[in-house]
């Protein structure tokens, strides 16, 4: 098997990502301080999702990996949401 090319990520990129992650953390704290009613959970989860995408793409190198891994990460996420959705078909309508 030929050796796959390895991408070396510069340190400063990791640093920028960290700054973005910390900013997003404070933003998610901020948004839950505002009274949005039922939407504040949604707000906080949107920020968490953005953060996790950043971690997955840069820290976990998905950006430089084979597309199959990216596809499977998406698949696992979808699978999880489908399970939650179907379970809520029970609890929401009970």
């Amino acid at each position, binding site marked *: *098997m030929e050796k796959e090319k390895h991408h070396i990520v510069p340190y400063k990129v990791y640093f920028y990502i960290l700054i973005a992650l910390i900013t997003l953390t404070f933003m998610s704290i901020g948004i839950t301080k505002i009274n949005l009613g039922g939407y504040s959970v949604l707000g906080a989860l949107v920020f968490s999702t953005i953060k996790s995408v950043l971690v997955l793409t840069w820290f976990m190198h998905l950006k430089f990996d084979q597309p199959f891994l990216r596809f499977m990460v998406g698949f*696992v996420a979808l*699978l999880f949401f*489908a*399970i939650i959705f*179907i*379970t809520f*078909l*029970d*609890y*929401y*309508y*009970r």
Partner: protein
Amino acid sequence: MQTAAQIPHDVSYLDYKGKYKGIFAWIFSTDHKRIALLYMFSMMTLFLVGVALGLAMKLELIAPGRTIMGPQSYNAVFTVHGVIMIFMIVIPGLPAVFGNFMLPIMIGAKDVAFPKLNLLSWYIYVLGALLVIASVLFGNGIPDTGWTFYAPYSFKTGTNLLPAIFGAFVLGFSSILTGLNFIVTIHRMRAPGMTWFKMPLFPWSLYGTAWIQLLATPVVGITLVLVSLERIFGIGVFDPTLGGDPVLYQHLFWIYSHPAVYVMILPAMGAISEIIPTFSQKHIFGYKAIIASTLAIAFVGYFVWGHHMFTSGMSGTAQYTFSILTFIVAIPSAIKVFNWISTMHKGSINPDIPFLWAVTFIFVFMIGGFSGLVLGALATNVYVHDTAFVVAHFHFIVFGGVGFAFFGAIHYWYPKMFGRMYDKAWAKMGWAFFTVGFLTLYSPMFYLGMMGMPRRYYDYLPEFHAANILSSLGSWVMAFGLVIVIINLFRSAKNGPIAPMDPWHGKTLEWTVPSPPPVENFDEIPVYGEKDGPYNY
């Protein structure tokens, strides 16, 4: 690093003298073929225990009232029977034995991707089995919850349940690691030129299975952890007195345990998809359709768990959804049956032992499948829920499906695994007794269930007596057939005639290596050309 050149290519894996002697040459071996046999012998031992418990239940049910055991013993017996058979036999069954043995050879690899992890999986399997056995032998009382460990009884019962739950959790780990190993093996170690759509169907089925093992097992893992914590600390998640919802336990449990049924049946279907073309000497009909249906079963099978819970008080919306999805998952199974039958059509059929097991598989699998439709429909499900009908249904699928495929597979690959042929007359007699016994044992239970006999009781009303006698007689005939099959296989491993390299004229790669295969399977890794394929007859 040791180089491959140091390993002799003409010594079979059975005769190879490694660093260790005696039993250590086996339990320290990372050779996938030896690990497969380790699994096979440990499973065979546990299987005989499970069969003995099953026979004891049938003996108890031969007459109304107490025959050989009381209600508490009966509860313990069906619990241990279920835990052993489900978690230790049918879930690991075909992947751990034939998957381990055949997968690397069929895709042209020298071993699985992570051989040490593979051996570790077996150790974890044994640890899990020992934990379950410990829950039976020690503590105050044998577990009596049934293999499903339903809340809230699973944390109220005074019996020694924790080791059993922990054992099931540990067995899950073994299953996850095996799945992980197979996926990486299939991705990275296929022979040069063997593209995805030139891969034989048994590896394909293992691939689908491995994904389910990987993505469903952790859910039951965490569920079992929660039940244990509930039992130890009283965290409240499944305890209605503390605000928890026991139905949520059922959801979580079946989110794994329904896909687990496909962990059992997919490799069985894969083995059948190998046997049928070989014994019809014909290219498999609808190769890609079988692959697509494998993946479709693996995927849709994920979302049908609620059909185990139609009487649990679930919302109507959830019930319709699960019912519809259950009907959808029947389609790919039917596609496979259609393809097997079409493969036989106009083939040169050789009705040898493996083929007999394979066609019986199709027959009992269809009975099991059709009775599954009865259970998947809401109205009829409510009527037969928790009756002997359900017991008959899942024994037709899980024992009929997996069991017949397992025996088909072992008669198919036996000459490859041991380098010797079994006695065909005895094998045929064993098959005949087993099949007749199987049908006599489980068919009456469909009738009993429809007449209203509930499952999991040691006693029944006098009007159910006749059918129960028939069923118990069947269990003896089946056990007799089983004994013949096992003794024949055991004796032939030493004394049978030497088997040729390709006794059935199969075309997949395992028939191109000597029987039994050498330590590293191939002298040279085979190369698949443009025109090569697994079923070019």
